[in-house]
């Protein structure tokens, strides 16, 4: 009887730990848009327990602002790119306030800017007091110029 109770408690604790590890991490959101004909798309990669990571498709030469929240703006957000030659990441200074919790306080928006430098794939790692997130970044080359179209002969 006691063994069965302990077993159940351990299972609940494991589930809670998994939820804490996977589901209760900062949320990322795009804060700008790509210019026409170029890509800047941030997608969440979801698993059974929620968002596992993020993926970002970015055209070469395009920049995208990405904010980090966890019930409010992330605290002490820092970001690093595994390969700065493919995708560069810089701290963004967004002069807006976002609500924190339910007590009416507000904090400055925490954000970074990701810049597509050259075609390739790399990972950007974001760390904050609330947890860490990875963004798998794929930088795609710009589309080739359209070929001349014959409209009449």
């Amino acid at each position: 009887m006691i063994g069965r109770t302990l077993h159940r408690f351990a299972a609940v604790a494991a589930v809670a730990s998994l939820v804490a590890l996977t589901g209760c991490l900062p949320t990322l959101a795009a804060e700008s848009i790509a210019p026409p004909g170029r890509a800047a798309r941030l997608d969440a990669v979801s698993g059974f327990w929620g968002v596992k990571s993020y993926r970002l498709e970015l055209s070469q030469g395009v920049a995208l602002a990405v904010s980090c929240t966890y019930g409010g703006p992330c605290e002490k957000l820092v970001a690093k790119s595994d390969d700065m030659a493919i995708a560069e990441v810089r701290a963004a200074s967004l002069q807006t306030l976002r609500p924190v919790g339910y007590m009416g306080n507000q904090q400055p928006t925490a954000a970074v800017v990701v810049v597509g430098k050259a075609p390739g794939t790399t990972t950007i790692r974001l760390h904050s007091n609330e947890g860490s997130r990875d963004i798998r970044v794929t930088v795609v080359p710009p589309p080739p110029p359209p070929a001349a179209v014959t409209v009449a002969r």
Partner: protein
Amino acid sequence: MAARIGDECKPVGGIAFVEHMRTLLPSIFLTGCGLGGAMHQATLVGQCSADDAACSRRHPQAPIAIGTHFYPDVSTELAGTTTPNLRLESAVPDVVAVEDGALVAHKAGASAVLISTDDGSIVDFVHVWVAPVTKITLARRDGERITSAIALTVGEDVTLVPALWNGAQRLSGDGEAQWTETVTGPVAILRDGSADRRRLRARAPGKTTITVALGEIKAAVDVEVVQ
């Protein structure tokens, strides 16, 4: 003074209401206004005098012509602060480079120009397009397009400004356009401090053709000087 780009984005109403809405609907404010920087905190326009109708300030978002320079005027609209000392950086210098504070267009394409503070944090960014020149037209300084021959009396002068185009798209940027005349004598081609603009001074009766060229692209206008 030209209207600031950000002006169109400001809702009418109390500041408190605006700040409240900014808090509640940040994504609408960050994506709803289509002009200025992508983060809606800075503007990047051309350096022009207020009465210069042909200046690129009228076309602040036009692509920059390959081989030309664009001299930007960057400012921010941040509550509670004047514009901090800002730096410009290009995401892809092969397309557009930043040299001595000017944007230099090298290759067709698009590149983000990052506007950052001294500590490197990004205040805003603008995607700048670069396009090749396919046509040059001439206009008077007040912007009126030259479509036929110009007649001048001796002593009279007229200022001509070349406009760069890619098809129907007006391009921005100052290029070192070459000005030549078929017959020397009737008209003097005078510089007026601008890289591309010229003042034609009628000197003696006669006819000539003035040609302005930027690389292989040319435009010409016939000028007749009468007594």
